[in-house]
Each structure stands twice: as structure tokens, then as C-alpha cells.
């Protein structure tokens, strides 16, 4: 298969054009700094949601500890970046944070991924809590007071680049042979094992990959918001990420992207009703689950919808 086929070039053009449009809007000033924060949040949430979707949606391993990996990426990234105050340092920080998160992901994944369903969920939740408490008590992270004054090298360009890379890599992973193995584990673990798939290996692989990208998101977060403290990465954060994944549809990458955008817009809109914000958010969550438990897209992608239309046209 050629790399430069029509479809890939079209995707590339869309990616570049979208970047250019938003960049122009930022330079003209139509997108002011308030919206810029929303955009940064959207990018970070997309990375988090897509990576969690790989673990929960595609591999079927229910994780409630994604914020833990995010915090590892954030702290490692921030500390490296504070030591090496340059764009290069920022990039090393992002990669370092991601690698650290992936390593922890492997260490934690090997024992806990033997568990299934709710037990795994609780174990990952516990793991994230342990990570948070450790950061709370470490000297280098400045404990509960948090790290302040992290240099900001993130801008729209870096946010966008990392988001696009995450989406493309995870999308390609799912379409690769290991990715198929992961999906087969979701569908039926015993059957997958019977077909000769090393389920532990692929589960840990998906988990580590998810942790890697969560680490990237964390490092970006640290760089964008200058400030870190352990309580940002509590249980609530993991839930927020899971909500995006479930809302978009488990097993749908475009679903996660759309859900991340929609939820960020809803949150930004609700900001003015600060007292009622969480109530409305919670109500929304319950109502969505009651009326559309499979999420917006289910396991379908946006591109599937276009394919469906084409088929109909042919029938006509």
C-alpha cells in the first residue's frame, strides 16, 4: 500500500487547513484568550479520551485510573521542563513524561490486568489514588502546595500536533494486527485466547500505550496551565475522562473527539452558572445514559456514516 494515496493526502490537507484556519483566527483575534483555553482543554481531553478509549473501548479493559497516568506525565514533564527551560526541554519533558507513564503502566498492568470488569476498575482506581498520595508526599513535587511557575511552551501548534499524532497513531494501532488482537479480547477473551492470542501481552500493550498518551496529555497540561497540584488528578478527573469516552461511544475514536469538543463547549457555556454547573453536568450524564447508553456513535466512526450514505446512493 502506498503511503501517499488519495485518502492520506486528503487527510493531510484537511489537517493542515484546519490548523491554518484556527491559527489565522487566533492571530486576527476572533478567538480570544478565553476561547484559547477552551481549545487547549479540548486538545488535552481529546488525547486523554482517545487513549482511554484504546484501553476501555477497544480492548475492553475498564480503567478508572487514567488521571494517575496523566499526573505522572504532568509531573515528570514539568520537572524536566523546569530544569531545561527551552523548547527542546519542553519536548524532552513531554516524551519523558509519556515514557515514565508507560513504564508505570506496564508495571501496574502486569499484575492488575489479570482482574476483570469491576474488579479491574476498582484496582486501577486504587492505583491512581496511590500515585496521587505519593505525589502529595514527595519533596520534588512540592507536596500539596504543588508546582508553580512551569514555563509555558505550549501553544496551539504543539497542542494540535500532539493531538493529531495521538489520533493517527492510535487509529493505526487499532487497524494493525496487535490492534485487532485487542479488539478480539474485548469481544471474547476466552475465544481470543483459544485462537492463540497472548491476551496478557496485548492487554498490557494497550494499557501501556494508553498510559503513554495520557502522559503526553499530562505534560501538555502542565506546560499550558503553569501550575500543578496532586488534587487536580483525583478520582474526579478519571471520571471526567471516562465520561467523554462513554458519551462519545466506546470503541469510536471520532466519537471521543466529538464528545471531547461537545463537553468542553458545554462546560465553557455552563461556566457562567457556576453554582448550577455541576448539577447540570450530572443531570446531563444521567439523562444521556438513560436515553443513549451506547453513547453518541456506539462503535461506529464518523467516516462510517459517509460510507453508509454512499451505499444508499448506489441502491438508488
Amino acid at each position: 500500500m502506498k503511503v501517499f494515496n488519495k485518502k492520506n493526502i486528503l487527510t493531510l490537507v484537511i489537517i493542515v487547513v484546519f490548523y491554518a484556519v484556527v491559527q489565522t483566527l487566533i492571530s486576527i483575534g476572533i478567538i480570544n484568550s478565553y476561547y484559547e483555553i477552551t481549545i487547549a482543554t479540548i486538545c488535552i481531553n481529546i488525547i486523554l479520551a482517545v487513549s482511554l478509549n484504546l484501553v476501555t473501548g477497544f480492548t475492553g479493559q475498564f480503567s478508572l485510573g487514567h488521571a494517575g497516568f496523566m499526573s505522572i506525565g504532568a509531573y515528570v514533564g514539568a520537572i524536566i521542563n523546569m530544569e531545561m527551560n527551552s523548547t527542546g526541554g519542553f519536548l524532552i519533558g513531554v516524551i519523558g513524561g509519556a515514557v515514565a507513564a508507560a513504564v508505570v503502566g506496564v508495571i501496574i498492568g502486569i499484575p492488575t490486568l489479570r482482574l476483570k470488569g469491576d474488579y479491574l476498575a476498582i484496582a486501577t482506581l486504587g492505583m491512581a489514588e496511590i500515585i496521587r498520595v505519593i505525589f502529595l508526599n514527595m519533596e520534588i513535587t512540592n507536596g500539596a502546595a504543588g508546582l508553580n511557575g512551569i514555563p509555558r511552551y505550549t501553544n496551539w501548534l504543539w497542542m494540535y500536533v500532539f493531538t493529531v499524532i495521538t489520533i493517527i497513531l492510535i487509529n493505526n494501532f487499532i487497524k494493525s494486527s496487535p490492534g485487532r488482537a485487542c479488539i478480539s479480547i474485548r469481544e471474547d477473551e476466552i475465544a481470543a485466547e483459544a485462537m492463540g492470542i497472548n491476551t496478557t501481552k496485548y492487554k498490557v500493550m494497550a494499557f501501556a500505550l494508553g498510559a503513554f498518551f495520557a502522559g503526553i496529555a499530562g505534560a501538555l497540561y502542565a506546560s499550558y496551565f503553569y501550575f500543578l497540584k496532586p488534587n487536580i488528578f483525583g478520582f474526579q478527573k478519571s471520571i471526567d475522562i471516562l465520561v467523554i469516552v462513554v458519551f462519545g461511544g466506546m470503541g469510536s475514536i471520532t466519537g471521543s473527539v466529538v464528545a471531547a469538543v461537545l463537553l468542553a463547549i458545554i462546560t465553557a457555556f455552563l461556566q457562567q452558572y457556576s453554582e448550577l454547573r455541576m448539577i447540570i453536568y450530572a443531570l446531563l450524564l444521567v439523562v444521556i445514559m438513560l436515553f443513549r447508553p451506547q453513547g453518541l456513535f456506539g462503535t461506529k466512526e464518523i467516516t462510517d456514516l459517509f460510507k453508509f450514505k454512499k451505499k444508499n446512493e448506489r441502491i438508488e
Partner: protein
Amino acid sequence: MDQFLQQIVNGVSLGSIYALIALGYTMVYGIIKLINFAHGDVYMVCAYIGFAVTTYTSLGFIPALIISMAASAVLGMGIEKIAYKPLRNSSRIAVLITAIGISLLLEYVMMYFVGAEVRSYPKLLTEKIFNFGNIIINLQQIYIVVTAIALMVLLQFIVIKTKVGKAMRAVSADKDAAQLMGIKVDSTISITFAIGSALAGAGGVLVGIYYNSIDPLMGMMPGLKAFVAAVFGGIGSIPGAMIGGLSIGIMETLVSGYGNSMYRDAAVFAFLIIILILKPSGLLGKSTKEKV
């Protein structure tokens, strides 16, 4: 040695509160396989109801406890009817997200009405301290443990001896078969939620007395820890939840007493992970063989 025994005493009183909450988790999980994240918040709401009852009327400890338990039973049943029943046949994760939604809803609705500040609980029980050698036991701790044990005995009686309890056990063993035998599955689940929530309500009032303070977000951590207790004892097993609750309580006070109290929560979760890896079915849980 004295300090150790003192920590054990404190641990038992804290643990019996955890056990009461854990019972609700274990019953609900046993019957519909749902980690009811809203359970911790039912307990929080009831702590507030107990607070309101004792502050605005001059009722004593026992009436306040009964009123809170009744209110939480109604609340639990309501939550089940509105949020979980329509999702009986959808995926487990959808129900779990709904449970989390309900949990957030209870927390923030409560925060909206009563404010986020911490309130101090009225003194319901007279301060009285008993000295046994160097070990101090106060009257509150005795009340807490006695109330908890009484409620657990009552629960054990309901589950083992009554018809309702039999129905509950049947539904948790096999829902479809139970239905075929003429058991009303829906109302049995409702009753399970009512009983479980009532126990959490009792826990809420007791914790208010024990810690002397309540706030709208107090349900999260004890809720999770109570779930850890339920998993430790073996989910679905009532004596297991009691043992689990007591162990977690004792462990927590020992870690705070001897080590660093900052690591208290981490210790509980580390303990959970070790338990899950070594014996996933818990101490008294039944291990189920997977069939293809």
C-alpha cells in the same frame, strides 16, 4: 502495647461504620452486579438529615437514627427506580456511569442547598470517658459499635430467616431462575436498595457523631473505602463485609497511629490491590469458575 490497643479500639469503632456502608455495597453488588457509586452519597445525605433532625427538633440519638434510616431507604429506592431500573438490560458500564452521575448529582445538589462549608455535628451523646488501664474508650465509640452490631444482627436475621431475605438470596444467585419460581425480581431489588441505603444512613449519622463534622463531599472517600472493605470480605457476602469493614478501619488507624497519616488512603488501596491479586474473590467470597 497500650498505644496499640488504643488504636485497635479506635479502629473497631471506625471500622464498624465502614462495615455498615460496606454492607450496602455488597448487597447491591450481589444482586445487580453494580458498584453503586451513589451509595457513599446516600450516606452523606443521611448525615445531613440526621443533622437537620437533631438541630431543628430536639430529638435524641435513637429517633434521629431511625428517621435518617427511613429517609435513606426512600432515597435509595428512588434512585434505583429512576436511574438503574431503566438500564437493567444495558451494558454494565452504562449503569456505572449513571451511578457516578447520580453520585455527582447528590453531592452538588446538596452543596447548592446547604453550602460547601463543613458543619459541626450537634453533640447527641453525652461525653463520658471510660478508662481501662491506659486505654481510653468514650461513650460514643461504645454507642457506635453497639448500634452497628445490632443493625448487622438484624440484617443477618432478615437475610437468613425471612421470606424477603430468601428472595434476595435467590435473586442474587440466579435472577432468571428466581423469576421463574415466582419471585418478584424488581421489588426484591428495590427492597435490597432500601435496606442497603438504610444501613448507609445509620453509618452517616454515626460518622457525624464520631468525627463531629459533615460536608457535602464527605461521602466519596468513605464510600470507596467501604467498597474496598466489601471486596476484601468477598463481595456478596454479608459476614465478609463486616470483617472487611473492621479490618480496613483497624488498618487505617494503625497506619495513622504508627506511620504517616498522609499515607492512610494509599495504604487502604495498596491493600486492596494485593488482596485482588492474591485472592480475587475476597476472604469469604465464592470463587466462580468461568465456563465457556
